[in-house]
């Protein structure tokens, strides 16, 4: 995340904690795109992503008092977003159902293969959904969110070398899955 954005968050948090409730609206406005982008990659559809965004904002609003400025706000926010998305995935009946849904979607789309872009996107979504949890976490934060290895290790609470290993496994697994399909 951009350093200026982090500074802006810092000022707004101070203002909010100082008793200005409008500052939270600004925090949410500034943060929503990053949160939405992350949760969407986990959940695969906009409606669920919007619900998850709301959930993340509720958690931030409720816990901002206990947020320690020793850590970066964005790290804390990403952690909440990842956990909320994973929770939402768990709440869905099962991962198999999700896979089935993607497979159904891809079957429908494959019958109209001339529309190659949505087909490819759906295949990639399905492949990402099937990645092991840690690979999925790392790939989403790196590929879609562009966080550095260090930032990802802070968000997920694991070592940089583990992040690197999971990133490379995820990228190679996706490539292998997609080979010959698009």
């Amino acid at each position, binding site marked *: 995340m951009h350093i200026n954005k982090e500074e802006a968050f810092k000022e707004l948090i101070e203002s909010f904690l100082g008793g200005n*409730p409008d500052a939270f609206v600004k925090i949410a406005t500034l943060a*929503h*795109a990053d949160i939405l*982008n992350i949760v969407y990659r986990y959940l695969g559809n906009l409606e669920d992503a919007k619900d998850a*965004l709301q959930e993340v904002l*509720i958690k931030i609003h409720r816990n901002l008092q206990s947020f320690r400025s020793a850590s970066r706000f964005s790290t804390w926010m990403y952690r909440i977003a990842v956990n909320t998305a994973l929770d939402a995935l768990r709440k869905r009946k099962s991962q198999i159902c999700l896979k089935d849904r993607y497979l159904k979607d891809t079957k429908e789309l494959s019958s109209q293969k001339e529309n190659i872009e949505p087909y490819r996107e759906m295949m*990639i979504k399905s492949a990402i959904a099937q990645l092991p949890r840690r690979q999925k976490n790392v790939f989403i934060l790196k*590929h879609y969110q562009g966080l550095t290895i260090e930032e990802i290790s802070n968000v997920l609470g694991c070592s940089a070398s583990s992040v690197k*290993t999971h990133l490379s496994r995820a*990228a190679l697994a996706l490539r292998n899955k997609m080979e010959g399909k698009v």
Partner: protein
Amino acid sequence: MRCPSKKDWVLFYYQEKDSLPREILQNHLLSCLACRNDYAALSGFLSRVERKNIQISEFELDKIIATATKPAARPYEWIRRLKEQIAENLARAKPLIYKPQFIMITIVIAILAAIAPFTIYKPVRLAQEDIAEVEVELALDDNSNLDILSELLGPEDFNENYSGLSIA
């Protein structure tokens, strides 16, 4: 030079590095056709994985923020909060189970729990035994007292006045 690993190439694509510096990888690409082809395929694939940002309208965002900041709009909020807190605490406590200190403390508590019934309750049991012993002695004394009384009064008077009391 030996060909870098697949992991090195993935990290190279994302402009991160592992064991090898970026310049070495760049030079290797110029000199090794196999890696050049492999990397072209990998970077081609990753660059086609769509990165476009997801967006919602301002109106939708305002609605979401308004709901998020209004606790009254969420019934049974406190139950949900409690559940969340319990789940969080459990999740935090989980890794504790794997710590050697935790295992040691558990073993010590188990040993103490096994020994405790024999050590803590022993004095109580002894005290009760002592009381019983004194009671028996007193009862025996009572009996001998009655014997003396019966001798003093003579059996007739004694039976008349103390017939309810038995002599062992």
